[in-house]
């Protein structure tokens, strides 16, 4: 799958899927998704959402931890 097709897929998937609590991906998150497309694409839709949401939570937690070293 080329990057443009993958980008279209992830955009439509995350924007169209109404399941909370994962709002549409940011540009940064979308790029991260594309980097790992082969691994990520094998999961069913609900699990994709859970994974995406979990990674967002990890990033937020890591951001909080990073404040300790500034």
């Amino acid at each position, binding site marked *: 799958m080329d990057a443009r097709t993958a980008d279209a897929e992830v955009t439509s998937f995350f924007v169209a899927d109404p399941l909370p609590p994962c709002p549409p991906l*940011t540009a*940064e*998150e979308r*790029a*991260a*998704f594309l*980097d*790992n497309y082969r*691994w*990520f694409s094998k*999961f069913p839709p609900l*699990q994709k959402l*859970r*994974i*995406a*949401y*979990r*990674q*967002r*939570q*990890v*990033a*937020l*937690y*890591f*951001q909080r*931890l*990073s*404040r*300790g*070293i*500034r």
Partner: protein
Amino acid sequence: MESDSGGFQREIELLIALGRAGVRYVLIGRQACILHGLPVHSFDYDFWVHPDPANLDALLREADALGLVPSVDRDRMRSVPFFHLENDTKVDVWKVREFLLATGERIEFDEVHARRMDLRDEEKGLVIPIPAIEDLILLKRLGKRPKDEEDIKGLQAILEQRRRPQGS
């Protein structure tokens, strides 16, 4: 832990377990960039582990306990520099003593590990070893993707900011 870790307990459990087992590794890649304060995002984790067999065994034991499956079997693992650990978490594992830059410069695990920073969350018993920012910049030079260049610029800006005297 689910309630106070925002639903990402598996990742945190893995990092806690590695710390408790004394696995010699550093978290590199974009997750380390985030921990240094760079506003980026990643879906996977990059570990640089010391390739000593006992160290690797300890890593695999903890990964197995959390259901993470290696991408290569144990026999093949001895001869490859890199493999994945996967379930619905993805970890890229580099098991080399050193990286060699195109300039001929060597980045040695023991030196990077000795200069590492340990980020802690005492409440969770979590310790995350990450390279010093100067070493992370060097490691980012191994990648040749546009995003690696962007990360290097961002890390250099953070480094300059840290070196600036406070109040200036």
